[in-house]
């Protein structure tokens, strides 16, 4: 660790970790990860499958012991004070982890007892009412649809008024309407001072976060607000539009090998072409633009362009 004493994080920094490393056997799943999340922020956590998002979240809330690194969560040391952290954190697991053979009410009651929630019965009743589940309170949790499981799981996380929500891919497999409702609720909670760290694969969800971190193959690749992340990537992007989808498909393979092109991704009958060497890419695009039937124009790089680019550039060499 640094010889110079690190200044104590300001009070409004809720998660402050550095150098977090986790190995399973000889595979390093998370490698020197650092993250700072401020109070009231919705922090998006992105990265391909198996990139170490879940492992990182588990280390933050004390479910896994890091092999190296240090940090604090809500002012408590993640290595030694996980009991205190657990009392103030709401953690929603990726897989539904309430008891499927318990009813909605029994599950909520169980969690409320665990955290010794004050005025427990009223609290559980109110939660069920807020979810609009009064008529289904005795229904077994296992028989709920994916969207309802997610809503009940979130409600269970909130029962003990946590200061920090850790949500691990909360909207996987949930329909767009339910996702919209879910995010509205997250924003409402953040407005009330709740800090939220949420992992996701959806770009529209990433765009609803205040700040992002992108992790791939266990390493933090970039972080910051969306404009910061896009600017930092230094990616120039062109859009080629063709009335004929077939020729576009043939063009994709050809253009990926052209100078300055690092990535060509079709979106319907448009092709997004990106590269970090703006000059070379511009020359290539000028050549393409001369071909008949193709309309080429420079566009702003989207978050998705940036992430796909980062993922490809950082693939570990086999």
């Amino acid at each position, binding site marked *: 660790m640094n010889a110079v004493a690190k200044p104590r994080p300001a009070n409004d920094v809720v998660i402050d970790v550095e150098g977090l490393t986790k190995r399973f056997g000889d595979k390093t799943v998370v490698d020197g990860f650092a993250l700072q999340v401020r109070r009231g922020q919705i922090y998006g956590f992105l990265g391909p499958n198996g990139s170490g998002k879940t492992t990182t979240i*588990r280390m933050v*809330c*004390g*479910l*896994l*012991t890091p092999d190296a690194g240090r940090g604090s969560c809500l002012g408590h040391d993640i290595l030694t004070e*996980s*009991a205190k952290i*657990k*009392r103030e*954190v709401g*953690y929603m*697991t990726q*897989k*539904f*982890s*309430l*008891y*499927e*053979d*318990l009813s909605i009410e*029994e599950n909520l*009651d*169980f*969690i409320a*007892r*665990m*955290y*010794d929630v004050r005025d427990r019965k009223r609290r559980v009743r109110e939660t069920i009412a807020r979810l609009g589940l009064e008529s289904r309170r005795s229904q*077994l949790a296992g028989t709920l649809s994916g969207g309802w499981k997610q809503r009940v799981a979130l409600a269970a996380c909130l029962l003990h008024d946590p200061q920090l929500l850790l949500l691990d891919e909360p909207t996987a497999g949930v329909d767009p309407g339910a996702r919209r409702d879910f995010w509205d609720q997250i924003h409402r909670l953040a407005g009330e001072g709740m800090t939220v760290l949420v992992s996701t694969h959806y770009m529209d969800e990433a765009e609803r976060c205040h700040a992002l971190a992108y992790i791939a193959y266990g390493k933090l690749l970039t972080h910051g607000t969306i404009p910061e992340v896009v600017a930092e990537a230094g990616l120039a992007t062109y859009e080629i539009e063709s009335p004929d989808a077939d020729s576009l498909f043939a063009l994709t393979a050809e253009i990926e090998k052209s100078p300055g092109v690092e990535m060509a991704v079709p979106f319907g009958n448009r092709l997004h072409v990106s590269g970090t060497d703006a000059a070379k890419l511009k020359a290539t695009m000028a050549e393409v633009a001369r071909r008949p039937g193709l309309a080429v124009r420079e566009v702003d790089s989207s978050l998705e362009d940036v992430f796909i680019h980062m993922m490809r550039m950082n693939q570990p060499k086999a």
Partner: protein
Amino acid sequence: MFTWHRFLAVLIKEFVQMRRDRLTFAMMIGVPIMQLVLFGYAINSDPKRLPTAVVSAEASPFARSFVRALENTDYYRVVAQPRTVAEADALVARGQAQFVINIPEDFSRRIQRGERPVLLVEADASDPAATGPAVSALATLNLRALDNDLTGTLAAQKAGPAPFEVRVHRRYNPEGITQYNIVPGLMGVVLTMTMIMMTSIAMTRERERGTMENLLATPVTPFEVMLGKIVPYILVGYVQVAVILLAAKFLFQIPMVGSLLLLTGVVVLFIAANLAIGFTFSTVAKSQMQAMQMTMFFFLPSILLSGFMFPFRGMPVWAQWLGEVFPLTHFLRIVRGILLKGSGVAEILPSVWPLALILALVSVAAMRRYNRTLD
């Protein structure tokens, strides 16, 4: 740090889950009944119509009457009438006959002379429980069997001692074992099996269903989890004890000499020890399947070395030492002592403290094994 609210949370959850899991619940009640029926009736009851070979050297009315009287006891069923003793012995060796009745060649003549001839019954007593009742039925048989044949001048013999003597040779296992051992012992066997099995899947089930992550994310401590998971099954254990005691009393007429109150009090130690062992297994096993295998791995030597199946004193010393490790060994001494010998606190104390010691050691092991993280 222990808190009542978290202990209660786990406890209530376990009760609800137990109630939902109808199959398991049925099994908890069904296993003692099934074992009782199997061990008590099917396996160890008073066996009747046992295959019998009769070697008769003469075809006299006396011999025929004797064989008929034998069959009338319902314990014997004549399956063969070999001509030689060697043939009869072969039948016994192959297990095709359990008894050989030897009627000597001058049987009727010697009865007529009032010489009280000897009639030899050879029994395959390798399973003494199986031959015992049949052999005792012989004791009175010789008094009445020939009454109809003793006519005329022989009628006087009816009043006197039996006209002939039955001599029983128990082969393969000359001493018998008391049957009353089995049913009280079954209480220990049933509790060992079901209690260990139920808690051995306690943590692995949480892990397999994915609920472990949520449980670990709460501030619950290992001791709260263990206690919350064990206490509901102590009650189930008492239900089993009640079922077995009722069956012992009304189905099997097992004598209950000692204090049932004392037994009820002490049995909690035995139940808790088994539950703690199961809980320890569940902190080690990776899956419910493994937990079941570990249960069986523990259960078999428990039955074999505890004195349930074989007399404890009959085992070699090293096996006896090994047997002391199992809670069942100590519990068998307690339950048989109380029920059959009327033992009091002083007599069972030497078997009570080992149970307490096992419970304490295993609980400590479980707490050390319990992983509070997902590592």
